[in-house]
């Protein structure tokens, strides 16, 4: 999903510990890793792949479709701007704790160049049996089996649990779309829902949301127009009110953001909202039979 099976993928930060570990796993799974970027090790080879000084250097000799960033928070903005300037159209940002103004900056730059950003703070994307980009255990057969359920999640750990529950129940996953847990992200819940709705390999959708923000409400507006069944789990019903929103923030957000508001919006759109992730597979099975 989003990053196709033939898409080539550049790894920013390929020589680091996590970059190395996950690049090997992505490549073993079938992802077309084309090489990586590390300005201090340009010209070397790592994992038998070329290392360039920048994404713009990497795209001098070839077209590259996607990039994934294993980059520390304060390095993300420049790394993303380099990827965007290189003409790479799909960007997966895994990093947590990216300053929000940096995120807003490179999202705006990406929009101007027509590039598509997933994240920040996402666990990545999986197209089961085809490829994965990020750090999801796509290769773990208990978590990922091929099937026709599309999964959307803001959280990697909770998304993993949900995929595993689907597989335990005898279902399988067409694609996993990790959108990220940050307040401002490039691909919203609604964007992911639209993509999975259009995906012919996906027959039903499991949506994992969280309290805060208004993305689930926006997704509900689209869900109301869908024919594919959607089951949702929204995390945070038992959470105490978190960081208080500023007055000005409250006016922009309105009353949206609470568990009750999200549940109501989704249910009014025909989405079944489950009390625990374990209930999701049963609901989807029943709704697919109808």
């Amino acid at each position, binding site marked *: 999903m989003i990053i196709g099976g033939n898409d080539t993928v550049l790894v920013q930060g390929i020589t680091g510990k996590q970059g190395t570990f996950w690049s090997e796993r992505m490549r073993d799974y079938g992802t077309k890793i084309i090489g990586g970027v590390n300005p201090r090790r340009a010209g070397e080879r790592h994992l038998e792949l070329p290392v360039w000084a920048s994404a713009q250097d990497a795209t001098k000799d070839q077209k590259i479709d996607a990039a994934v960033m294993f980059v520390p*928070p304060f390095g993300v903005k420049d790394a993303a701007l380099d990827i965007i300037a290189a003409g790479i159209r799909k960007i997966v940002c895994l990093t*947590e*704790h*990216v*300053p*929000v*103004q*940096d995120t*807003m*900056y490179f999202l*705006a*730059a990406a929009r101007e160049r027509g590039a598509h950003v997933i994240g920040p703070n996402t*666990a990545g994307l999986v197209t089961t049996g085809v490829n994965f980009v990020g*750090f*999801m*255990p796509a290769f*773990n057969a*208990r*978590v990922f089996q091929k099937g026709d359920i599309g999964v959307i*999640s*803001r*959280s*990697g*750990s*909770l*998304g*993993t*649990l949900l995929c*595993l*529950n689907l597989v335990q129940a005898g279902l399988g996953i067409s694609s996993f779309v990790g959108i990220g*847990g940050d*307040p*401002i992200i*490039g691909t919203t819940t609604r964007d992911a829902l639209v993509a999975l709705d259009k995906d012919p390999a996906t027959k039903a959708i499991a949506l*994992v949301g*969280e*309290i805060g*923000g*208004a*993305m689930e409400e926006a997704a509900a507006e689209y869900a109301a127009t869908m024919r594919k069944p959607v089951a949702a*789990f929204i*995390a*945070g*019903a*038992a*959470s*105490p009110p978190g960081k*208080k929103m*500023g*007055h*000005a*923030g*409250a*006016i*922009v*957000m309105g009353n949206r953001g609470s568990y009750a508001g999200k549940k109501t919006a989704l249910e009014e759109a025909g989405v079944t909202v489950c*009390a*625990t*992730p*374990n209930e999701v597979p049963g609901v989807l099975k029943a709704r697919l039979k109808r």
Partner: protein
Amino acid sequence: MNFTEHAGKAVLRAAGIPTPEGILARTPEDAADAARKIGKCVIKAQVPTGKRGKAGGIKLAATPDEAASHARAILGMSIGEYQVDHVLVDPQVNIAREMYAAVLNDPETQGPLLLFSPEGGMDIEDIADEHPDALLQIPINITKGLDEESLAAAVRRYDPPAAGAITDILVKLYDAYRASDAELVEINPLVQMRDGHFIALDCKLTVDDSALTRHEPLARTGTPDKTTDLEARAKVLHLKYIELDGEVGVLANGAGLTMTTMDAIRHFGGRPANFMEIGGDSYTKAIPALEIVLANPNVKALLVNFCGAFARTDVMAEGVINAWLELKPKIPIVFTIHGTGEDEAIAMVRERLGIEPHDLMDDAVKAAVAAAKGARA
């Protein structure tokens, strides 16, 4: 991180926005001294929360004696979750008009949003309710910055004579927002004085926690979140821990999974004792995390829920087992473990603790809730 009015006003002044030249006071005597220098003044509780006026935390004083007596009343007062330990002694200002200005991160446009209203001095929600036509909202393209000409044209519709001066303040406010990595910077009220000049009478500032380390001198002027002793211990170790009033201790990885574990405990009739997340980069910190969860005396059973993607469940489980064997707590422990490293993790729990982890999270939660109730009886 939230900032008091006084700390926020320093950010405004650095951007060139005038504010009253107030003096901080920690005792009634200091407040009286400040009033002697300033003259007619206002005593303002310095806590980073709204409703200070309604709580009695803002008082006018005409004399040093009055300043001291107001300061005596306000110092030590509780407003929201904060206790007042200092007040700002600000000179009184001749107010002709009160306006509103703010810049904030807007998830809907995924960029900065500038707000301005010629109606200020009340909560922004009330401005939006009572004067919806008098609230200017301008989304800003952060790569290009503020477009001064179109901003000036928009402001002119609200206040033609002062449009230039207001635009100047808004441009500086946007600079302050960008320079401090603010999530929100708000001036309410933005006051036009009888001599026509503008001055920021109050300031609310919230800085993005993810950006704090690149704003070192500024970050030290912020007000740390209120924490319990255990929360403070966790914070030092960079562990995300929130103490709650339930009896089922929670140890999980990832914010989403940790919240979900708490939700499931409540769904099956129990109450979570805490939020404790050891995912992300902190997945190797299982030992100190467990020590903190167990230090809460209300915990009657512990539920460990690991689902490894990036985080390795074998590393986390080993930490928990080591800590458990060392601390020897006299409460039941329940596991459910999935994802990266699960085979090794489950085998370790079986062999070293003699416990069988649950295959389904719901079953583990039910067992932990029942165990906590049993232990309580």
